[in-house]
């Protein structure tokens, strides 16, 4: 179902910046096809901001992340990137493993 996300792993590691007005339609569009400019959260650099498009991790993890405020449409800031990622979501700080961030598709926001 999310096979297109796996292909996205090969995207350049630098976050791609696109116009924010795409975000509104992107949430609907991602279910069917990848959105131009989207990438995996793991590909975002420290300091990047992005909007979550899809949660391609396991159902249990996605359920937990949504409860923590990280859901489709949420805005995230990458605080630091190392073996895992430090993020800021809805004012709270989260540490997510690489297996999780690789499965989350985001649309980077302009700086």
């Amino acid at each position: 179902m999310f096979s297109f996300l796996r292909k996205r792993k090969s995207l350049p590691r630098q976050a791609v910046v696109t116009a924010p007005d795409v975000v509104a339609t992107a949430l609907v569009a991602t279910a069917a096809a990848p959105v131009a400019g989207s990438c995996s959260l793991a590909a975002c650099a420290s300091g990047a901001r992005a909007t979550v498009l899809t949660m391609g991790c396991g159902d249990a993890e996605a359920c937990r992340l949504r409860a923590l405020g990280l859901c489709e449409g949420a805005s995230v800031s990458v605080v630091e990137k190392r073996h895992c990622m430090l993020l800021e979501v809805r004012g709270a700080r989260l540490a997510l493993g690489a297996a999780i961030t690789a499965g989350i598709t985001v649309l980077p926001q302009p700086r």
Partner: protein
Amino acid sequence: MSGTVERERGTAAGTGRALPVVGDRPAAPDLGLMRVALIGNPNTGKSTLFNALTGMRQRVGNFAGVTVERVEGYYRGPDGRRVTVLDLPGSYSLSAGSPDEEIALEVLLGFGQNEPLPDVVVVVADAQHLERNLFLTSQILELGVPVVVALNQIDAAENAGTRIDVPELIHELGVTVIPTVAKRGEGVDHLRRAIAAAPDLPRPERKFALPPAIATALAPLARLVRDAGWASEAADMEALRLLAVPAPESHLAAVPGLDRALAAARAAVTASGRSPRSVEAELRYEWIAGVVDRTVTHPPRRERTTSDRIDAVVLNRFAGPVIFLVLMALVFQAIFTWAQPLMDAIEGTVSWLGTTVGAMLPPGDLQSLLVDGVIAGVGSVLVFLPQISILFLFIGILEDSGYMARAAFLMDRLMRRVGLHGKSFIPMLSGYACAVPGIMATRTIENPKDRLATMMVVPLMSCSARLPIYTLLIGAFVPPIAVLGGLDLQGVTMLVMYLLGTVSALAVAALFKRTLLRGPMRPMILELPPYRWPSAKTLALTVWQRAKLFLRRAGTVILSLSIVLWAMATYPKSAPTPGLAPQAQQERQLEHSALGRVGKVIEPAVRPLGYDWKIGVGIASSFAAREVFVSTMGTIYGVGDADQTSAALREKLRSERNPVTGAHVYTPLVAVGLMVFYVYALMCMSTVAVTVREAGGGRRGWSWAALQFGYMLALAYAMAWLVYHGGRALGFGP
């Protein structure tokens, strides 16, 4: 009581089974008693608020059938009624999937075992992170029970420049909202009054309308749940919630045809162009965004907070691990050294009590039972109390300050290599001081399999009780030759013993995680809460609760086992030989006793390790507590009250010869083998008792404790054999 929630009665049409009907749950009896459940996200100050409400009037236990901790307290309400408060486990939502959160959901729906439906639910929301906290709040509002929201840590939010329009928030949520600062007790009286009034207010309900297509898709599922006994509002909440959960929880098992109805609802939601997995979060956060927009004023630009500044240092790639190691060294040192004067004081008191009781009673079995069995047995438990208290004080400080999450984050990479979580590190480190608090500290690990795997290996970390054995044998058989820098061979040998235990613990954990406790490797999802000053009252209560729990539960098991061991060392009695010195008489009695006979019986088993029957007795007697080995050796060799530094005992060991062959019994190789045996062997009743309880109690707890004891004994035997025979093959001993 009028506050008891009246629920619709469901029918279990066509099933013929007794379904759990919420209205039939044991509701709170109308005796002027009110039941309150406290729920909230982790790190919202929920436990501090619970302490502020109830003070010392608390009881700690487990929820029926699970190891999830249950803390209940009570207070006198403003109208004189007794109000019991149940502190539910911290939950991010009603469907986030951890055992703790499942328990919270069951209690709030009235399905908790022996848990009556609460009259009022108090949602503790962190004012600093209101947006995220309103997710759980919105689910609770749909349960159909009276709700009060405690807007906690309002001072921290205001200090950060955030303003919350409380009257507007009350209007938006439709329930009473009380701003509180739990650690200073501010707003607690208002909260008590709001709780008393809540049952008489209109019930809260869903605050947003579902899109028509979603409402239509969910209707059959909600009807099915309602027919099975859920209240109307709760059924609607459950139907929406179920769309996202990986699998329906156990309390829904009795709903007939649930899987089919859920699949149909998901298909209908998908057909409407939405994702069933994400629709609940999208709808709730959409509503929440509007509420936050209308009630919260954020500062014009986000300033760098104190937490950000601390994290810049504490999580720094280079400084972070160093700070972590320094902190852990401090904890370790405190457990080792700060506890010592208190432990000495307890030992002194127990010894004084034994002498006093002994002097009051005539010599005989009753005196021996009370002094050597009961008082010495209970004393052996009490002596751990300072270490446990200090460890839990530190754990409390680390948890409440927000550092524990950072520690787990820093250690996650290392621990993940053996299949464990970063949080496993602290209990393992605590094991160096004592396995008992180490095993109790595994409660901070959410994943049950990770928790069990950690529990199983904590006793492999060389605890302080092994130190006397290492000290005795190293002092007697390892020469103090300079080896490296300031270290001599004795110090290196000690270090090797500690390293051997640590490496083995990691290896065995990896083995457990790949076999018996195999499970999907849970990727790291960790919230790093803002740093806060811990509340002294909360810390004191936490330490008090842990101490009480340890004394009450482990104490009973220890006491019984101490009496059994005493009986084995006392009976059958040997006839007193006239003119024989008391020490020699004692040695003869030990040889003649059941314990001595056990030593003789196990001699063939320990002989391949190079041991004689006396070492066998030492091992047998130290099954209860390994440090007993030293005093038993003292008794056997007639040295009296020997300790690990006794020169006489060391000399006796060095000169002991086999009566048949004339060869030395203790060679350096036998001594090293014996130390290796004690590195691995789990010889501590307290650890067994705590493992039984922490692994779930009952048969399940005993099974894990038996496995732990068994594998460690097998490992001890195999490794000691390997050292002895391997050493001989390499020419290190006769």
